[in-house]
């Protein structure tokens, strides 16, 4: 795009301004502040972007204050070799016109004109490059992101990078990214928008379908359950009917059994009646036979009893005789016993007196012997008391004497014996002796012998004193013991002890004898016994002599020549006993025979009475019914009874047969089964009704329709989802592929872009200048020599210079296909020393590009060679 002319009327503070721009080179529009330089750029922007009829605030704001006039903007420009004159009147009039001064094209007006220009600009002008290469006064100077969006620059870089084709279009990438973003999130690639909604819809649809099928399956299940219950109910029903039939059959059989049972009872009644008749006949016959038998028995018994009575009478007579004899013998024996007893008593008394006298004499003798023994015992005890020593005394004396002998021996052994012989005297201790007399002693203590001047001290052994004292003590002990027992010596003591032993033996012997004499009694017992005997003997001597009948007078007791009354009495007693036994036997026998006779007589009389009675009874019975008649009745009733019994047996047989066919247990069981089956049938009917109710409740709900709706929804959702995923995958793949190729392209653009920037930069900073570029072709750092500075750390002036350098580089790269470069009020931060070289940079674009510089200070761009200048007059300036 090449701008040829721009005319502005009544735009903000600019009343009228028109500039003619050369198609190539640097064109400086100079004007003081507030002169409207920037308004020119804004007016051109407004002309190209907004309709004349637009009511946007920025358009209203462009209207001059206090003047009701249209805002007019007119521009002439060439796009793709088509020159256009484009005019709009804003705010007032709101007219648009488009003319083609170099062609025969029909001029356009209104929206047609606006749309035509917009279409041309959209398709043929790199709008992004237009915006990127413009430095606006009121906007911060930013970096040109040469890697993004600028088609013409990309094309130029692609060409510079050796590509045979024009560069790619980031607009396409943007559209692809937008297309992708319709389905997938930018960062994680997860479903979004329609695709996310489709995913949810599909999940919901599947859930709904599952639920609908589940509900429909409930109906199938309910139907199946009903069928199951119905089949079960039918089975129960069949069972019930079978059992009901069985019960009916059994009940009918039961009634037949009842009838047969009744028949049996009737038959048994007949049997009973026949049996009664037969029993009566039998009883009568038996009674008749009994009467006959009784009569026979009575006759026999009467005869037998009569014979027995006679025999008893015959047996009684001798017994009576023998009893009389036995009685007489008894009485004689009793007399003899009485006499013998008197004689025996007299003899016994005489013998007792003689025995008491003899006892008295013996007792006196014994008492005397006892007195003698007592006296001897007393004398012996007295003697013993006189000589007796305490126990162990002799042993102690014996031990004391032994100790004394041992002490003497020890004493003798311990004391030296000194014998003094010779002539002269010697002094021994205090004693002076004559040696010729001789002197010999045991030395028991330290003794000094002085013979002349010689002093000899004899010292006994060390323990001599103790030995001597022991001997003295032993001796004193012996003497003390002898003194205590009154003996002179040990021998005497031993003699006394032996005597005392003999006396103690005598005393023991005396005591044993006395004990033998007493024989367990005491002397007092013997004395009292003797007194009693003496009194009895005295009494016997005072008693009178016995009667004459006393047989003892015939002799003295113990006289062998006289008969023994006691033996005789015993003999008489034995005889008496024998007679008494004989008497009892004979009397008992006689009594027994008498009783037997009486009994038999009574029995015979009774038997005779019975015989008479039985004959009378038999006769009376035969008078009523003869024996033959009874026999005939008996036969008749027996036959009748047999017939009835046969009939009853047959009835029971029929009953048993019926019971076998239908025993009552079967009926009971069948009835019990029937009751259970009725209950079960009722339950199964209830289950069927319940299942039916459930089916009815469900079947009315048209659940198939729900399934169908859900199926269609799933189908639609699946189809939609598949289509969306196809699109999403396609967009994603396309986006990834484009991104990948774009990154590759950006990397290939680095070199030509870098070369273009460095070429211009070296005009300003010298040969050591270099820059490092990012992937999007922005400057990351600047290097001059060895000093590298990040872009963000550069000064405002340096960044301003780099901004201009990059834009000019872009303009040069794009060349004829480019757009005007607008530099509005730049170089303000640039050191004046660099303005000249920066002018060379700007001028470098002159051959291929249109550079429009707006400045209030022309001197900033004095270094731009070949630049043409338009001076604005300021606000309200009139056209040139």
């Amino acid at each position, binding site marked *: 795009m090449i701008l040829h002319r721009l005319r502005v009327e009544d735009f903000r503070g600019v009343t009228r301004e028109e500039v003619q721009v050369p198609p190539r080179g640097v064109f400086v529009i100079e004007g003081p502040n507030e002169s409207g330089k920037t308004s020119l750029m804004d007016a051109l922007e407004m002309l190209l972007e907004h309709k004349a009829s637009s009511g946007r605030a920025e358009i209203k704001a462009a209207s001059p204050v206090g003047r009701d006039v249209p805002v007019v903007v007119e521009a002439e420009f060439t796009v793709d070799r088509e020159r256009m004159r484009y005019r709009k009147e804003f705010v007032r009039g709101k007219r648009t016109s488009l003319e083609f001064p170099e062609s025969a094209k029909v001029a356009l007006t209104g929206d047609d004109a606006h749309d035509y220009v917009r279409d041309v600009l959209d398709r043929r002008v790199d709008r992004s490059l237009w915006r990127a290469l413009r430095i606006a006064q009121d906007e911060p100077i930013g970096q040109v992101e040469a890697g993004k969006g600028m088609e013409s620059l990309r094309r130029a870089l692609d060409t510079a990078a050796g590509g045979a084709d024009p560069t790619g279009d980031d607009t396409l990438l943007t559209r*692809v990214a937008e297309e992708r973003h319709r389905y997938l999130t930018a960062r994680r690639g997860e479903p979004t928008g329609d695709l996310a909604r489709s995913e949810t819809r599909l999940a919901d649809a599947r859930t709904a379908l599952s639920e609908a099928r589940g509900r429909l399956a409930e109906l199938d299940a309910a139907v199946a359950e009903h069928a199951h219950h119905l089949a079960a109910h039918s089975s129960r029903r069949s069972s019930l009917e079978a059992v009901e039939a069985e019960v009916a059959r059994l009940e009918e059989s039961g009634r037949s059994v009842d009838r047969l049972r009744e028949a049996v009872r009737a038959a048994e009644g007949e049997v009973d009646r026949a049996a009664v008749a037969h029993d009566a006949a039998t009883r009568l016959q038996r009674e008749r036979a009994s009467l006959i038998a009784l009569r026979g028995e009575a006759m026999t018994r009467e005869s037998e009893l009569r014979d027995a009575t006679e025999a008893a009478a015959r047996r009684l007579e001798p017994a009576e005789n023998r009893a009389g004899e036995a009685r007489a013998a008894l009485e004689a024996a009793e007399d003899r016993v009485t006499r013998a007893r008197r004689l025996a008593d007299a003899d016994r008394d005489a013998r007792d007196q003689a025995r008491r006298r003899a006892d008295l004499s013996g007792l006196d003798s014994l008492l005397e012997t006892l007195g003698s023994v007592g006296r001897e015992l007393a004398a012996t005890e007295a003697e013993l008391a006189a000589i007796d020593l305490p126990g162990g005394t002799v042993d102690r004396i014996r031990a004391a004497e032994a100790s004394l002998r041992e002490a003497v021996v020890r004493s003798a052994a311990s004391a030296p014996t000194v014998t003094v012989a010779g002539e002269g005297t010697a002094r021994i201790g205090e004693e002076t002796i004559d040696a010729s007399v001789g002197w010999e002693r045991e030395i028991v203590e330290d003794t000094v012998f002085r013979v002349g001047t010689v002093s000899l001290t004899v010292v006994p052994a060390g323990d001599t004193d103790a030995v001597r004292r022991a001997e003295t003590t032993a001796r004193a002990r012996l003497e003390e013991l002898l003194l205590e027992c009154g003996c002179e010596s040990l021998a005497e003591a031993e003699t006394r002890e032996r005597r005392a032993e003999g006396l103690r033996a005598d005393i023991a012997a005396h005591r044993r004898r006395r004990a033998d004499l007493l024989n367990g009694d005491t002397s007092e017992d013997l004395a009292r016994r003797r007194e009693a005997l003496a009194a009895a003997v005295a009494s016997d001597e005072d008693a009178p002599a016995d009667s004459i009948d006393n047989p003892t007078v015939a002799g003295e007791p113990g006289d062998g020549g006289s008969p023994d009354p006691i033996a005789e009495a015993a003999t008489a007693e034995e005889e008496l006993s024998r007679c008494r036994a004989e008497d009892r036997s004979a009397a008992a026998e006689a009594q027994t025979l008498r009783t037997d006779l009486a009994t038999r007589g009574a029995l015979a009389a009774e038997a005779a009475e019975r015989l008479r009675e039985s004959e009378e009874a038999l006769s009376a019975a035969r008078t009523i019914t003869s024996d033959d008649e009874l026999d005939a009745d008996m036969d008749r009733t027996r036959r009748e009874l047999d017939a009835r019994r046969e009939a009853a047996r047959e009835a029971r047989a029929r009953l048993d047969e019926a019971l076998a066919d239908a025993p009552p247990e079967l009926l009971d069981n069948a009835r019990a089964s029937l009751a259970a089956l009725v209950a079960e049938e009722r339950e199964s009917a209830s289950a069927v009704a319940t299942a039916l109710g459930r089916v009815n409740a469900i079947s009315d709900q*048209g659940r198939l*329709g729900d399934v*169908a709706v859900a199926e269609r929804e799933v189908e639609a959702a699946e*189809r939609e989802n598949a289509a969306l995923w*196809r699109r999403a995958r396609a967009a994603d793949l396309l986006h990834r592929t484009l991104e990948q190729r774009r990154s*590759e392209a950006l990397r290939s653009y680095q070199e030509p872009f870098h070369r273009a920037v460095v070429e211009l930069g070296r005009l300003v900073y010298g040969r050591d200048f270099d820059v490092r570029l990012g992937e999007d072709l922005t400057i990351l750092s600047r290097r001059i020599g060895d000093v590298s500075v990040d872009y963000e750390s550069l000064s405002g002036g340096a960044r301003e210079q780099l901004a201009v350098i990059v834009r000019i580089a872009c303009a040069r790269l794009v060349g004829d296909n480019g757009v005007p470069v607008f530099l509005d009020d730049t170089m303000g931060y640039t050191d004046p020393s660099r303005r000249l070289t920066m002018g060379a940079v700007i001028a470098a674009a002159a051959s291929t590009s249109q550079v429009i510089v707006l400045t209030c200070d022309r001197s900033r761009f004095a270094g731009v060679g070949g630049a043409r200048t338009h001076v604005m007059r300021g606000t309200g300036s009139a056209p040139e």
Partner: protein
Amino acid sequence: MDRRRDGGMIRFLHSADWQLGMTRRFLGTESQAVYTADRLAAVASLGDLAVEHGAEFVVVAGDAFEDNAVPRSIVLRAAEVLAAFPVPVLILPGNHDPLDVSSVLRCRDFSSAVEGGAVTVLCDSDPVEVRPGIEVVGVPWTSKRPDPARLPALLSDLEPTDNLRVLLAHGGTDEVYGGDSPSVEAIRVADLEAAVGSGLIDYVALGDRHSVTRVGTGDRIWYSGSPETTAFDDVEKASGHALLVELGAEGATGGPGSCLVTPVRTGRWAFCAITAEIETDSDLDALAEVVDAVRDKPRTVLKLGLTGTVDVALRARIDDLLERWAELFAAAYLRERLTHLVVRADDSDFAGMVDGYAERAVRDLVGLAASDGSDSEDAGNALSLLYRLVDGGTR
């Protein structure tokens, strides 16, 4: 009156598999509503056809309803239509609407048709006298489980009769389905032919198969098919018909009378399964011509299986046409299983449309699309997308 003896002709309509309440998943809500209404309209048309052709009654050989659990509106509307039928309708419960406890044929909402006498439901195998001289016997399904013993039992119990006797049965035959199957009744054709040959039965009206199909060697055993299309024409042939059956008097020698069976159109819908190989624009033109020739597009479903190698422009044309047809037809979609369109792209496809790195990206995608890799289809779609974006953005 015995029509055999008086030499008259008996006419009746044989129909089956109405499957009222059937839905098709590929139909949108609007099209489904039309389809549902048309299925009932096809049933209603039987009444008109009966009058038109002098049919005395209509027999329905099973599956009058899609299921016992169809929506109540379906039942009420069906009862309304049937209650107004000019001739009696005899309906045999099929495997879709078995005569179980939930049977729709016995429900309250359908009772108006039954109690009014317009409809007779064959609840058992007892003969139903349509009028003197004509009886109908059937083997109703009482559950969804097949019971192969039912029909042989009925045939063995049948006694010879002077009446014209029509047998209704529902299920597959060993001839049609090629033998026993656990899911169908497996009707033995030989048994039917023997019954027909012995004069026990004059006509066998079968249901279950949705296509009009003659069974056996004679012309007295038929599937009437569904009165309205239910499946695509690569599976279901000649559906959307009923059979007008004309039974003539017995011959002079006592042999069987004539039997003339004529399909009559009842349905309006068409489910078209189309396969086409698209390599060039002319191929696509030919397909479009065929598709555009379809007359009743709102009642037609298209299922397209497209194969071939196409450039991105042709692929984009295909996509455009599909979008258009999807709006025009009741439903139109590509069959995933039978569609394999390889997008073949080269530089010329995008000549003047993309350049620079985008052009190189296009070459990448072209290569990927031509490969056998898993991304080939996505690459083709990506090229189509690029084509649309570029085309829409710059042209």
